[in-house]
């Protein structure tokens, strides 16, 4: 009998499965237990299966990372709605930060940010976020 992927606890465990342990048909599950109405459950409370890409990361794709400056943000949610990678964490209509595990560094959030100066800016991947915040530019004069 195939190992039930729902019982697999970690990503590493999946990698070691033999042909005899995988689910027939290569079906994958999103959660380890039933979630009655998923839209009512925020991601931090979901019983994600290790087979859910939420549990994986693509942060290493980035060359530059978006850094978020709370002091300037007006919580307009443009970054949230246009982020292709569900990497803008927003709760109760407030922008909280960037999910770096899932952010591929596309820079859309920075482009769509309407504040002046912007509340999100791209910085080199290796730079410390506090250092980046210290380097934040001043308000740009309208040309």
């Amino acid at each position: 009998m195939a190992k039930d992927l729902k019982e697999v606890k970690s990503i590493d465990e999946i990698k070691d499965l033999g042909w005899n342990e995988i689910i027939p048909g290569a079906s994958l599950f999103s959660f380890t237990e039933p979630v009655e109405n998923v839209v009512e459950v925020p991601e931090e409370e979901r019983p994600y299966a290790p087979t859910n890409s939420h549990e994986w990361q693509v942060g290493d794709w980035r060359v530059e990372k978006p850094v978020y400056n709370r002091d300037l943000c007006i919580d307009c949610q443009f970054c949230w709605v246009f982020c292709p990678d569900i990497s803008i964490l927003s709760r109760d209509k407030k922008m909280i930060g960037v999910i770096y595990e899932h952010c591929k560094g596309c820079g859309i959030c920075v482009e769509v940010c309407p504040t002046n100066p912007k509340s999100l800016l791209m910085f080199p991947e290796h730079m410390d976020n506090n250092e980046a915040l210290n380097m934040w530019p001043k308000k740009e004069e309208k040309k």
Partner: protein
Amino acid sequence: MVKKIKNLKEFSLSNDRFEGANLMCPGCSHNIIVREVLNATDDPVIVATATGCLEVCTAVYPKTSWDVSWIHIGFENAAVAAATVSAAYEVMKKKGKLPPATQKMVDEGKEPKIVAFAGDGGTYDIGFQSLSGAFERGHNFMYVCLDNEVYANTGGQRSSSTPIGASTTTSPAGSVSYGEKMMKKSMVEIMADHGAPYVAQVSPSKWKDLVKKVQKGFEVYGPVYINAQSACTTEWKHAPEDTIEVSDLGVDSCVWPLYEIINERDEHGIIYSTKLNITYRPKNKIPVEEYLAAQPRFRHLFKPENRHIIDLWQKAVDTRWEYLQRREEAGV
């Protein structure tokens, strides 16, 4: 059940059912569209996806990026897949054999929404037969075409959605060619002519317009077609951060007009009214040239010998914009 979304802040309360760490390119519009569609409803959603970028990047064993049930069969059959899931749902509902959690949602007025996603290759070309059949049969589902005007998944070949002058890997611009020779196929009208109750064209950059149309689509019974502009950083060759800007240029130049066609039907399904509504009018209609200039796939058109194609583009866009406005005025 229609989800109330007054503004973007309210929309941001949505808990996504599409997950990160998928393998789509940075800056891909497909993801933005999928999020906007799924977040447009709080009802359960079941998804079918055609072979294409979205499929190969969101369900690569052993991981899935979907928190809704999802199926992929092939390149050309997303429509029949969604349509048959819809039929299977209705059979099980009629027989009283739905799984308990699903039955509970239905009892609360939250009917599952069945959505197919496919690219323009899977829609305009290889999947057209299956799409046409499913629409003619009138199944209750929504079909969203992620229209990036190119076979992106296989490396940028032309499709029948590729616009004139675009350089693709099978319609390359060269010393004696300006690239793609054909005008884009008018998919929205073709699908409206199937008698579908609701058909619309959307852009992810105009999120509110998109969400509203998806919600309208979910409210009608029958097949709904949504043609979504999907700027492709890889094949349109713009920078990933420019996805939304390029999309806006398309909308504001009227290259990608936002409109809907509503076929109103009586209780026998006879269409008694067809209405085309333009849902967005740019305040300043910008020249097509600005849209083309933002995308290196059109770079060669700016050579002197190809300038006439830019003129042709402008003429085509103006004519079409005129046509849409006249239809809207005439109420047909």
